[in-house]
């Protein structure tokens, strides 16, 4: 039997005016197990807390009930006070007789009656409370960033700056991501490479950062502070440590017909290649799908020309297993495929390009050396039509993406403006549904395109594009002008919707991080925890969480880094002790709990149990990782046998409260 002390607070007149506090403390004194009951003006005051502590010591109380304001207000205060007096803080329960009693009832009789009942419920609960000790788990002080785009780079740099080692896993042979392919950035029009490549170099040179390029995450085990990650380092057939990046091999390689993915297939590269001049690491890689040596065993030119002997045709994929305390997903985005939108003739004419392809066509390091030329015949285009919202804002499902891709309005304005600036002889049309330009200096930028550069903005989607006699017949409707337009364009540029990178879904499964129906990672809380995943220790950076432009990406990358730093700066993690616990003797291993756990806190083991008649039984039973469990209780209801219970809110405790209230 517990020895319970009851402390009824007046809260000045806040409680005492509508609740007869004396009657409450008298009534509760008669409850079984209550050895002391009193009331006092301000329980949360130092004097009040002293009184509680004194009674704990004097009477050896094993449980404390405070009838006062909401536990959201002072539960922590009273728990701390009791802990100082040697009582386990989880032996304290609060009866909320202010917000949920005195403040909402005028009649003193019924208010007092209710306060007594609430007090009885708290006493009934304390009877069943057990001392809980918050568990601790150590923290591995190293972070993993998955994805080496601007988001991943920035996150890694910020974490490294704080002194923690961080690994970047990038599936491509170089870090840099989509931003490397962009020509200029809105709204300032500074060159993307000029601002990105120094960061890439910083990352490469930072001794806390270890770049694992051409690598992919294969498996993730463990939990916050203690992840074990298996990383596949794909064979690049070039020893990264020896290669100097001189590029001689890429000039001599006889296989010249490889579509160059960096330029989105607008030109070709060799079978051995360095993706682009500023690649980090600056090391060649052999594309096994095209290398004659790897395919037929005959060639070996690159090996012959390499002065440092970096070429290694025997290289195999390698699996690394590493420990991390925190993981940041920064898997970024891709433009969607244009297959479903053939009304724009993307597959029918090379002169219909996506905006990212257009970036390459405008870029000095691109296939045309920065001169805008039609891909079909290399001539200078005079009439350009930009179509926005291709695949965005659709009805979902088959039609396309239901969301706004957010960045298209701005980059289309940028493209239109740059085209007009470089080639004043062009006519540029932009077809839009809405122009969405919230952001610092964004709308001004768009207005400049219209007002200073004379870009024709037309409200209305393009209906169809038909290639005809070397021209692109664009049929559209000017909804504001109320006329049908038929434009003979030289080029059509499609602002394709963005979608999360294809690697995100399998990664989310490995991380037990949740995703929305569009495969964007979901955040732990949409407003208050936007850079954390609901899975503790997993953080989100950049466009894998939702469409973002560069400044937003960098801001989120920094925020994610701050969260990681906060986590890694702890030596041990204190766990919430109010977590689920499985009674292994009752668990039947059905996996219902595991299926509803949003945190992946439940795992199963096969365990030997003593059976009847000296037999042993091997049974599958659930185990809760208290470091990962957040204590929601979803599992406790999914469990039909009641093997899963929640500490601090156990079945017995809640039913005791129910009984006391309904008595």
């Amino acid at each position: 039997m517990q020895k319970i002390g009851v402390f009824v607070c007046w809260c000045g007149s806040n409680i005492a005016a509508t609740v007869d506090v004396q009657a409450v403390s008298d009534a509760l004194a008669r409850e079984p197990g209550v050895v002391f009951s009193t009331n006092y003006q301000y329980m949360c005051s130092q004097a009040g807390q002293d009184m509680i502590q004194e009674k704990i010591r004097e009477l050896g109380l094993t449980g404390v009930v405070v009838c006062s304001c909401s536990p959201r207000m002072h539960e922590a205060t009273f728990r701390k006070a009791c802990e100082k007096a040697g009582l386990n803080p989880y032996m304290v329960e609060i009866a909320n007789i202010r917000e949920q009693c005195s403040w909402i009832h005028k009649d003193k009789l019924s208010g007092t009656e209710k306060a007594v009942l609430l007090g009885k419920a708290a006493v009934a609960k304390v009877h069943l409370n057990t001392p809980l000790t918050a568990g601790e788990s150590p923290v591995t002080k190293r972070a993993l960033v998955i994805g080496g785009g601007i988001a991943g780079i920035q996150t890694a740099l910020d974490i490294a700056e704080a002194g923690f080692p961080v690994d970047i896993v990038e599936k491509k042979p170089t870090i840099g991501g989509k931003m490397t392919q962009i020509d200029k950035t809105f709204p300032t029009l500074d060159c993307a490479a000029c601002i990105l490549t120094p960061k890439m170099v910083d990352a490469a040179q930072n001794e806390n950062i270890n770049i694992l390029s051409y690598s992919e995450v294969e498996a993730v085990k463990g939990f916050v502070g203690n992840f074990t990650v298996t990383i596949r380092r794909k064979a690049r057939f070039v020893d990264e440590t020896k290669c100097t990046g001189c590029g001689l091999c890429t000039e001599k390689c006889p296989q010249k017909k490889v579509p160059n993915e960096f330029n989105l297939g607008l030109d070709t590269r060799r079978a051995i290649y360095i993706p682009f001049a500023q690649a980090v690491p600056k090391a060649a890689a052999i594309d096994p799908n095209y290398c004659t040596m790897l395919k037929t065993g005959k060639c070996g030119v690159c090996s012959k020309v390499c002065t440092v002997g970096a070429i290694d045709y025997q290289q195999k994929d390698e699996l690394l297993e590493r420990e991390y305390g925190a993981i940041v997903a920064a898997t970024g985005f891709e433009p969607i495929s244009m297959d479903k939108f053939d009304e724009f003739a993307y597959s029918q004419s090379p002169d219909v390009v996506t905006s990212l392809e257009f970036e390459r066509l405008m870029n000095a390091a691109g296939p045309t050396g920065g001169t805008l030329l039609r891909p079909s015949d290399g001539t200078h285009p005079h009439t350009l039509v930009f179509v926005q919202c291709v695949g965005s804002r659709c009805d979902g499902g088959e039609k396309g993406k239901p969301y706004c891709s957010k960045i298209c309005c701005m980059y289309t304005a940028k493209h239109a403006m740059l085209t007009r600036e470089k080639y004043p002889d062009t006519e540029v049309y932009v077809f839009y549904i809405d122009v969405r330009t919230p952001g610092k200096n964004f709308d001004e930028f768009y207005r400049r395109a219209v007002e200073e550069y004379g870009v024709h903005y037309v409200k209305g989607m393009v209906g169809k594009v038909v290639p005809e006699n070397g021209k692109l017949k664009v049929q559209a409707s000017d909804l504001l002008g109320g006329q049908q337009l038929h434009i003979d364009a030289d080029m059509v540029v499609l602002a394709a919707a963005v979608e999360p990178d294809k690697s995100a879904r399998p990664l989310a499964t490995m991380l037990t991080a949740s995703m929305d129906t569009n495969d964007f990672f979901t955040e732990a809380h949409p407003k208050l925890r936007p850079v954390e995943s609901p899975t503790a220790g997993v953080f989100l950076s950049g466009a894998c969480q939702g469409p973002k432009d560069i400044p937003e990406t960098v801001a989120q990358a920094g925020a994610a880094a701050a969260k990681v730093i906060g986590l890694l700066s702890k030596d041990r993690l204190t766990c919430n002790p109010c977590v689920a616990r499985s009674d292994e003797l009752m668990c039947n291993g059905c996996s219902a709990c595991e299926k509803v756990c949003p945190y992946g806190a439940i795992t199963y083991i096969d365990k030997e149990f003593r059976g009847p008649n000296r037999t042993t039984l091997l049974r599958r039973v659930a185990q809760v990782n208290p470091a990962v469990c957040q204590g929601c209780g979803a599992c406790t209801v999914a469990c039909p046998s009641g093997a899963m219970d929640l500490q601090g809110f156990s079945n017995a405790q809640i039913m005791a409260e129910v009984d006391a209230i309904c008595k």
Partner: protein
Amino acid sequence: MNHMTEIVTRISGVNPRKCMKCGKCTAACPAYDEMDYHPHQFVDMVETGRLEELMNSRGIYMCLSCFACLERCPRSVEPAKLIEAVRLAVVRQQGRNHLKPEQIPALLDPDLPQQAITSAFRKYRK
């Protein structure tokens, strides 16, 4: 919602509120020049209850029912069904048949398939 709007949305099963006014339907419409109201206007007018005007419009008979608008609409609004529904609502009224049997001989073209006549009756008559 007024009575007529209700009938039209019920017949068509179209929710005009889904329209985001992108105009792709109109941009794709091959009968644009023949129509007094264009597909996107149709949707808007149904939503704002301007049914009277639509029912008296020429456009309802000019629509080819080619379904280009329906096919292209990013929001699955399906304007063609709406136009069809307005036309139905009109011809279902007393004396509003758009096609009279006696007109047929004048319209007859030797190459005209029989099915076209049947479907024209189905489309333009009660």
